[in-house]
């Protein structure tokens, strides 16, 4: 079985599809860079689950 390709419609919609594709790629890129900036500027991340957070215990011992 082969797909029938309506070339005229595909050609007409090429600009639309290309524009949407470029926008999506740029959007994904922006989200990635934004996430990187947010994480970098967020200060140290403390990944301690079910355990006392080091900064809290350090503060309490002072």
């Amino acid at each position, binding site marked *: 079985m082969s797909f029938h390709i309506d070339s005229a419609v595909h050609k007409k*919609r090429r600009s639309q599809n290309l524009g949407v594709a470029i926008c999506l790629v740029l959007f994904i890129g922006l989200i990635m860079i934004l996430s990187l900036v947010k994480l970098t500027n967020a200060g140290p991340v403390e990944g301690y689950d079910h355990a006392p957070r080091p900064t809290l215990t350090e503060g309490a011992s002072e």
Partner: protein
Amino acid sequence: MTNVQSLNPDHEPVFGDYIALMKPRVMSLVVFTAFVGLMAAPVSLHPVEAFAAILFIAIGAGASGALNMWWDADIDAVMRRTKLRPIPSGRTTPEAALSMGAALSGMSVVMLGLAANWHAAAWLAFTIFFYVVIYTIWLKRATPQNIVIGGAAGAFPPLIGWVAATGSVSIEAILMFALIFMWTPPHFWALALFMRSDYDDAKVPMLTVTHGRPSTRRHILAYAILQASLAVGLAFTSVGGLIYLLVTLVCNVIVVKDAVRIWRRDEVDAEADDFKVERSFFKFSLFYLFIHFFAILVETLLTPYGFGGWS
């Protein structure tokens, strides 16, 4: 909203038609004023966050433009200035404008909240709601003060830019909002004086039709004086300075002088010279906001070198 002609069968919408739905020329003013609002704020964002904030404010503005074109397609079709827009010219459908506008509205608000803060996102959501529901759907066809109300929606971007950076509203943000708010009505009323048939044909209650042209001339003068007061007042806040003060004084002398000339003329004088003064007022007001916000930007950029601001 009423039905308008359907999609032209010979035309497949291209990407540019969807960009046109977002009113790119209006977006350029939104981008510029939001950028100045963000830059002039005393808190600086990371460049990526600032870029994202401006982008999502612009997308929000574009989305509300698309929703405006969806609702106003019937009147756009009868006005010379708007009949070549994508929907009345059959290049795209009202449904496509509605879908695109609704989707981009939601996306821009959420993304601005994530990129900057939720206070700025709430202002953007309110702006879209105000422009689409309060102005376009409710009041545009119901009151001759439609331009005043629509002007408020267009005045929010510098305030949103400021809030994106600082997280709160201040007197500077309010004055930047007020300047655009006061600038909009006389700008469009001057246009209505010399493009008389357009709004009449569309049955949009413009002041020129409901209250008469002499009343419109008085309104232009009153708003021009208020606009000048606010513009000069902005010079004495933290975003102003000597450069801005000189620029605004020159600009507002021109505006008030032209507004007085418009007020003193009658229709016979205006038609005799093909609305020369009204056209001149309108043309200058096209640059007025750009000049003011550019002066604020110059003050901001010169401040680190000891030249900008009052200190």
